[in-house]
């Protein structure tokens, strides 16, 4: 019986193809909107998480900030040294400076970032090499003209397929030897330096040749996972306030970013935003359900005579009810499926447009589909009930 009911419903839907499509449009838009919003939300979260985790885990990033319009004192090697030696749990502390230059090689040139960073820094930030080797401590102390190039720099000015190792690269007026190529870390969508478009040289080399001072712009602190990040952060603040001679009551003129905390905060924020937008989209799904109910009521009125015929030839009330209910549910399920299809197109398209990764989430797809089926039952029930309650004599007389 149920198979036949399903067949009758499908036939009925095919008979009014345009109307059926327009009826389900509400569901289609609702499902597509919910899934697209959630998928994009997941994508944004994933991209931000990736960006943050590219900074390394169990890592603090410390940099000076302006307080009360007073330029803060820069950090120097001694500060980094003090943090490394005086705070329990800290395994690494490494400073870095950033500058920029035009890189020349073999008649090609490329505007890029120049970063001064030692091996310690690379380790703390989990920056890996795909070719070559990192700087040795001797090279770092000596401030040798050696460099590690980012994948974008390699692509821009080096010959594909030929190793750049050992080649002489000129940055403005400084010539350096390429000894390594960085692995791709993915361009972080947001502002800031592209981590793939950079040339890294030993800290001392960049300080001497590019920034012209011993200052350190920021430094990273890596700690053991077993230690409580809050305690380490507190010790860092105490130590740095003391070294920077900050009187009690004055604000910190430096900032400590905890990557784990940032990650949590961003995830929570994008999660809340996604939930809100999805909730708004869910309202359109509800409106779509009401549309289904409306058209099913019209359909029952329009097909009163048909219902009369069915009852006269022996259909039971519950069979008529099942038929109309099935029709509503089938309509909603079709709407759900088409909506999922649209959502797939829309979210891949938008993900490309917004430069956000496309993260397929099966849960939300299945949930939306089930939700639309439930809408079909909810909003199909009343019209179906009405159809089954019709008096066959009255229904047959209906024009």
């Amino acid at each position: 019986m149920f198979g036949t009911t399903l067949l009758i419903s499908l036939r009925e839907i095919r008979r009014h193809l345009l109307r059926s499509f327009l009826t389900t449009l509400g569901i289609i838009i609702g499902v597509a909107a919910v899934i697209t919003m959630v998928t994009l939300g997941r994508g944004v979260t994933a991209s931000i998480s990736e960006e943050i985790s590219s900074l390394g885990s169990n890592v603090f990033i410390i940099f000076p900030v302006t307080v009360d319009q007073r330029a803060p004192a820069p950090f120097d090697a001694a500060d980094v040294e003090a943090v490394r030696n005086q705070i329990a749990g800290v395994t690494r502390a490494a400073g870095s400076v950033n500058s920029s230059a035009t890189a020349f090689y073999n008649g090609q040139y490329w505007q890029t970032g120049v970063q001064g960073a030692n091996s310690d820094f690379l380790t703390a930030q989990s920056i890996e090499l795909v070719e070559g080797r990192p700087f040795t401590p001797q090279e770092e102390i000596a401030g040798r003209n050696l460099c590690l190039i980012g994948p974008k720099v390699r692509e821009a000015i080096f010959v594909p397929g030929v190793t750049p190792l050992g080649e002489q690269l000129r940055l403005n007026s400084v010539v350096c030897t390429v000894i390594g190529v960085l692995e791709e870390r993915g361009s972080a969508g947001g502002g800031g330096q592209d981590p793939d478009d950079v040339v890294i040289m030993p800290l001392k080399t960049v300080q001497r040749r590019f920034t012209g001072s011993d200052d350190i712009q920021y430094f990273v602190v890596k700690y053991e996972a077993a230690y409580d990040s809050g305690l380490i952060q507190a010790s860092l603040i105490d130590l740095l306030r003391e070294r920077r001679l900050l009187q009690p009551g004055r604000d910190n003129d430096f900032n400590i970013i905890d990557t784990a905390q940032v990650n949590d905060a961003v995830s929570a924020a994008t999660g809340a935003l996604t939930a809100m937008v999805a909730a708004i989209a869910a309202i359109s799904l509800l409106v779509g359900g009401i549309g289904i109910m409306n058209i099913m009521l019209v359909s029952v009125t329009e097909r009163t005579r048909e219902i009369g015929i069915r009852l006269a030839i022996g259909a039971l009330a519950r069979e008529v009810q099942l038929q109309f209910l099935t029709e509503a549910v089938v309509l909603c399920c079709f709407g759900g499926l088409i909506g999922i299809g649209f959502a797939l197109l829309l979210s891949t398209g938008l993900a490309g447009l917004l430069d956000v990764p496309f993260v397929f989430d099966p849960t939300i797809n299945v949930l939306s589909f089930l939700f639309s089926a439930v809408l079909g039952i909810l909003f199909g029930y009343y019209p179906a009930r009405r159809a089954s309650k019709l008096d066959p004599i009255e229904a047959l007389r209906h024009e």
Partner: protein
Amino acid sequence: MSVLPLIELQEITKIFGNGAAAFQALKGIDLTIEAGDFVAVMGPSGSGKSTTMNILGCLDVPTSGVFRFRGVEVQALDRDQRSLLRRRYLGFVFQGFNLLARTTALENVELPLVYRGEKKAVRRAAAMNALDQVGLAPWAGHSPAELSGGQQQRVAIARALVTQPDVLLADEPTGNLDTERSIEIMELLTRLNATGITILMVTHEAEMAAFARTIVHFRDGLVNRIERGVRAAERSIA
């Protein structure tokens, strides 16, 4: 063999509405119909013939009185039980044909079997057989809109036949047809009656009623007169 008459109406009344607006459509009908009869119900508008047919078709219940169908007291059955009775024993033919639009003749004829839960192959075969009986097998794939009025009514008759009912109820089956088509339909009903199906037909055309074996005349909610065994005589004259 048959001790019980197929249909027995005793003191049937039907009142529509209530209070001051109440209208008594049937004022006490007594009628017995034997299996295999061909009954024409005649009478002016408002005489209660349609109300009686609705009760006989188990579509409506009397306000009082007893309606026995094969010995079962129908007035005591609920809606679904009456549906099952219709499904099992009754076939309906209407004045307006009442076929499902945009559905082929074959699918229309199959419909009652769908509710009987028959398998597709069984339905198909039985429906083709019924269409063949009414001479419409070649039109099985056509929709009602593609058929003439007479053909549509024959599809409707095939639909009523397909379940091999005991009784075929026809409410003004020729009301929308010209004389030639009407006579075709009446001849078809006569043939079916000859195979043992009891036929109850409402009509106001004496010419069509003449095909019946028994003619029941209604007037003002009562059975006015019953003519039995009239058909043979009139047919031989014609």
